[in-house]
């Protein structure tokens, strides 16, 4: 018997610190499925579409935008669950990217 996957519902809420967030879906060409490609921040659907076309027009045939707050999400990933212990890095002397530090 296939075990049922446990998912939790992510709390609904605003996903934009300023303005509104819109989930973005594109289709590269006719026979491809719609693909979720992140989200854009804009005041309304027209603004979201405008932004999306500037980022994906070179690639996509179809562009859909959907208010992020209208999506109810269920996931196996739980950011709020008790954090497991992480082994400290043992390679602290190795070369590291220090960009922005």
């Amino acid at each position, binding site marked *: 018997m296939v075990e049922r996957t446990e998912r939790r519902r992510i709390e609904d809420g*605003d996903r934009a610190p300023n303005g509104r*967030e819109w989930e973005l879906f594109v289709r*590269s060409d006719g026979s491809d499925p719609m693909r979720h490609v*992140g989200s854009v921040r804009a005041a309304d659907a027209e603004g979201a579409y405008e932004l999306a076309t500037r980022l994906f027009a070179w690639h996509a045939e179809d562009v859909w935008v959907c208010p992020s707050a209208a999506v109810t999400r269920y996931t196996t990933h739980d950011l709020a669950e008790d954090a497991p212990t992480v082994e*400290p*890095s043992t390679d602290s002397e190795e070369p*590291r990217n*220090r960009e922005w530090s």
Partner: protein
Amino acid sequence: MISVSTLLCDHAADGNRLRYDVDIGADNPVSDRKQRRPVVVWNTTNRCNLKCVHCYAGAQSEPKAAELTTAEGKRLLDDLADYGAPVVLFSGGEPMVREDLAELVAYAAEAGIRPVLSTNGTLLTTERARELKEAGLAYAGVSVDGLAERNDEFRGVDGAFRAAVEGIETCLDVGLKTGLRYTVTRQNVEDLDGVVDLLTDVGLDRFCFYHLSYSGRGETLDSVDLDADERRDVVKRICDRTVRSHREGEEIETLLVGNYADAAYIVEYARREFDEAAARRVYARLARNGGDPTGERVAAVDCLGNVHPTQFWRTYSLGNVRDRPFGDIWEDESNPLLRAVRNRPENLTGKCADCRYREICHGGSRLRALAADNGLFGPDPQCYLDADERRGARPTADAD
């Protein structure tokens, strides 16, 4: 982030020496993996005690309800540690308004991620600076954007300059490595030397100069952005000052941030001021480091968990860490935009397409190119290289 002092003066600052050393990491796959992982800027909050006109985060004084909690933040840090992120930069808003900051810094340090801080400095009391130092904070970058009058006007609060300088002094007193963050605009370019002089006197030796990014409130500020001649002039002044101070035995560290045309300019500078061999050496080091880091060597997570290709690219998010672990989002090259951004030298258009410096510049900022309507892979309007500089023979990267 381009270290002028390392490139022009061989300043062996922590991290920079390693970042630019072409020999290290080549036969060490673990090191190489770490080297390729992004530094993660975590904008822990959108709240701020100041009202800076150029704030890229568009910060507010009111809290945003759904900020990542302490528990979520720790889980995020675990995800980042699992993924091998080398550095987490706690930013904001103003990260010091989060009361759990030291707890998160300690958590990051224990997980093996180097925690660093970007702050306006005005909340750095001795007690909090010491608490952060003891938590394992490796570095604090404090923003000052002009001498007192100009800085306070920029920051929207009287006394912000004095408070930031006191914050810097406090960090130095408790033994925390500290540096200046200075966003150069037409309005404050004249104050730059005065600020560096003043902070050198209080004991600071690391100075990071930022070009204006076009996002957050900065988007409406292109009228105060420097033009090409002004930009070239200020970058030259920074290079001159760095070389001079090293010749005089004063080992200051200077960095340029946010415009990779600077990388090209520094190669040209080395050729003009030193010789062809020096220019090739500088090029080789920059080639190792790569160009503009957007979507590759730098990532950002905002206060609500959205992952951005840089901390300045707020209007586009790749995904949210509440839905998927950071590493899954960052590795998901089924996203055509992310894939294309990571192959920029091949996709660049306009004058960047045949620029000899495209490998060490990557066409500069995608955000500014978009803001200038140059298209996603068009040139950064802040590029100040002239046609002769762009078109010469490409320096070889194997001069070392």
